[in-house]
């Protein structure tokens, strides 16, 4: 999107709209009919752009819709991200039985959203957790999960 040189309307404007609508879908604000909207917009962008960038920018989107339509519907209808990636649809928490209280996660959390003392099972405060996954990366016991 930032890579569009900005010269012609379909690519400069159209690709931004595709991005905005996809951001909404990924954030759980998708609406019925969005997929069809994306598809028809994509055709106009591909047919109307001057150079290869605009003519092919929607190809990854069209192919993910073609082969992974169920994931788009999961985001739009059930407000769920099956792969556990889209931040607004995912929460992180700690499985108490698995957590020995080693505080490794507590130390790497950029927003200090993890509380717990030594040897006591820790907890993630979800208010200012930014879903960056640092805790899950460092946890050796698989105690941190998200979904």
């Amino acid at each position, binding site marked *: 999107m930032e890579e569009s040189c900005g010269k*012609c*309307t379909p690519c400069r*404007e159209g690709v931004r*709209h595709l991005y*905005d609508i996809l951001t909404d879908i990924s954030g759980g604000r998708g609406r019925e009919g969005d997929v069809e*909207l994306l598809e028809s*917009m994509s055709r*106009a962008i591909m*047919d*109307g752009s001057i150079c290869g960038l605009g003519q092919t920018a929607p190809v990854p989107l069209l192919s993910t819709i073609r082969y992974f339509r169920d994931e788009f519907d999961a985001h739009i209808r059930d407000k769920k991200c099956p792969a556990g990636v889209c931040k607004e649809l995912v929460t992180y928490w700690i499985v108490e039985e698995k957590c020995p209280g080693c505080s490794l996660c507590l130390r790497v959390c950029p927003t200090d959203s993890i509380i717990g003392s030594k040897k006591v099972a820790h907890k993630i405060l979800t208010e200012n957790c930014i879903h960056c996954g640092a805790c899950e990366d460092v946890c050796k016991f698989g105690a941190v999960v998200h979904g």
Partner: protein
Amino acid sequence: MTTVSVSIDGRQLDVPYDARVLDIAREQGITIPTMCEHEHLKPYGVCRVCLVEMRQGRRKKLVPACVYTFREPVEIFTDSEWVRETRKWILAFMLARSPREKSNSGHGGGARRGRAARQAQGNRRGQP
């Protein structure tokens, strides 16, 4: 002065080589909407509002009438369904950028702007 035999909206014509599609259309009384074209400016072909359908044998694609010139025998359609659909989206993209679209503020602005583009396309269905 070599000429090329072409067709525009079904009318067979012999036009001068390298003549602009837009000029020939105007001569034939066919209106093609334009935005960034102006007689005092060198044709730039960026707004894409003047896209028309160009067919040559099996190959067909949309070309800007203000920049594309006649060099080979081709068929031009200035008002086909494909042209209208694309043109509506391009107008909608532009309108979505206009300030009075009330829905483009706030967090969800982006997507609602996309929806505004859709509405703009909807209520423009009537005019070219």
